[in-house]
């Protein structure tokens, strides 16, 4: 399943997140990278250096947009200014799909700039799916929603997180950005089996996969994107690939960022799992 309608029938391989600390290396050394993921909000500006750098990157590389503040799950309507700027960027990057998180983060026009967890209710699923549809219709590109790491659960929840994800994507008819690190983090924080989650996701909707590192504290795990990927997360990735097939995979590293080469080498470890999944499918 190398391509599907949720990633616009592309067959992207392993990418890494574009971060400012690596700009110089990328623009001067021009390393071979299959694709870069950008944080949309960093480039939703009117001009100047951010767009200049982006244009230079676009001359050489394929770019996919990943957002952090669309807040599909916020009860309020999507911000029109946000949508307009996002659409301008979509036209600029020609991103094959756009992803953002299955979470909320703003209410009454006030932004927390965090990825806050959803109450897993049918009401929330319905409202969230409706917003995903509105955003997709406005942007005119496929949308993939990403499962987030969470540290809290709500009394009002009526289903498990994976049931909620499935409910939203079926109602919205959208794709999934499956973050296997987030599944691991949440499974440790909420005591569920992460494999149950991975096995429950509709494979045909997975447009992209995220891998990342995290930080372990005494009573919980925090999704910090500042470490290499740990073995249990690689095992989840392996199982996801086994189910989904060769899928666009991206390593996130956002804090204590090492050299470009170290980040890229960490991302390329995914090749081992992609190859064995391909072999398993062939026999």
């Amino acid at each position, binding site marked *: 399943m190398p391509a599907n309608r949720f990633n616009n029938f592309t067959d992207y391989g392993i990418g890494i997140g574009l971060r400012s600390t690596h700009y110089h290396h990328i623009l001067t050394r021009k390393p071979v990278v299959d694709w870069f993921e950008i944080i949309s909000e960093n480039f939703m500006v009117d001009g100047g250096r951010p767009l200049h750098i982006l244009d230079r990157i676009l001359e050489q590389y394929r770019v996919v947009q990943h957002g952090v503040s669309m807040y599909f799950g*916020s009860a*309020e309507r999507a911000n029109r*200014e946000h949508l307009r700027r996002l659409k301008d960027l979509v036209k600029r990057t020609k991103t094959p799909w756009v992803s953002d998180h299955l979470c909320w983060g703003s209410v009454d026009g006030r932004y*927390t700039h965090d990825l806050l967890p959803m109450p897993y209710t049918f009401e929330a699923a319905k409202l969230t799916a409706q917003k995903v549809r509105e955003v997709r219709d406005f942007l005119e590109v496929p949308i993939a929603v990403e499962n987030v790491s969470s540290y*809290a659960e*709500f009394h*009002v929840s009526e289903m498990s997180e994976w049931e909620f994800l499935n409910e939203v994507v079926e109602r919205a008819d959208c794709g999934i950005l499956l973050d296997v690190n987030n599944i691991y983090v949440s499974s440790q924080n909420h005591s569920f089996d992460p494999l149950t989650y991975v096995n429950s996701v509709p494979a045909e909707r997975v447009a992209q996969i995220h891998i990342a590192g995290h930080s372990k504290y005494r009573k919980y795990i925090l999704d910090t994107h500042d470490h290499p990927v740990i073995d249990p997360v690689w095992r989840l990735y392996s199982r996801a690939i086994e189910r989904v097939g060769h899928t666009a995979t991206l390593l996130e590293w956002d804090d204590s960022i090492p050299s470009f080469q170290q980040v890229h080498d960490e991302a390329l470890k995914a090749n081992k799992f992609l190859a064995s999944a391909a072999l398993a499918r062939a026999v």
Partner: protein
Amino acid sequence: MSLLSLQRRMARAVMTPLTPNERMRPLAPDGRPMRRVAAGFIKPNDRLTSFERLEIYNRQYWFRILSGFAEDFPGVRAILGDRRFDALSKAYLKQCPSRSFTLRNLGSRLESWLHTHPRWAGARQKLVVDMARLEWADIEAFDGKAEPTLKPEDLASVDPGRLRLRLQPYIQLLDLRYPVDDLLLAVRAGAPEDSQDSSNAFNERHKRKRVAAAARLRPSNIFLAVHRVDYSVYFRRLDPEEFAILRRLRQGKSLNQAMDAGFRGSKIPRDRRAADLSQWFHNWAALGWFCRPEKRAAKS
């Protein structure tokens, strides 16, 4: 509980300021115990109470916005020192939470807030306001819009007397009571590349130096253009007349109107004005400060 009421309840708790030792407050803004508030909508687990789970988000919120705000206003921080800056940041962000999808705009209301809340800036309120204006202008100039630059042929068919020159949108014009441009450049020049790699002794020495430099700064009216060259932001000092002309052009006045206003009350001798004007226009054009005229829709 509806989705909206749950989100309002959680956002209120998450955006409540932390205690001095960076923990969640025991009481909610309405006076109810926060433990009861948290237990009302968040499940505990075998390791964390509802309060502790909510506290993770409360702390993340404040750490994130305080760190973003501090990155944007190192000059204000240099003037106030770390303790006062921390107090100002918390007071400002409590009263002016983000209303934008991007953290870039976190400081957009700082100048106006400082005018109405002078006590947070202390005795040097005017200096702090000037620095806040400069640092916000720096953000605006960094990623503001640039339009195609004016070319000589664009002026060929225009009556010079009625000419309306447009300034590049990214250019910010500031009249300031203190030479804060020098101070901000000094703060940036002294800032360690990566504070994690610097010794505590270096950081302390640097902190003392920048506070001392701020304390020495005396009032001196300056006029500034915050602009870009090759995608980097620069500060350019302007003569008062030069500033007045540019400001009128920004307001959409004709070239004649701008020049009249620029030299009104000027101490520049009349016989020198043409030469000065010529030099200023030469500089502005060389820096690409003028945009091409807007194309008007053809009349049908």
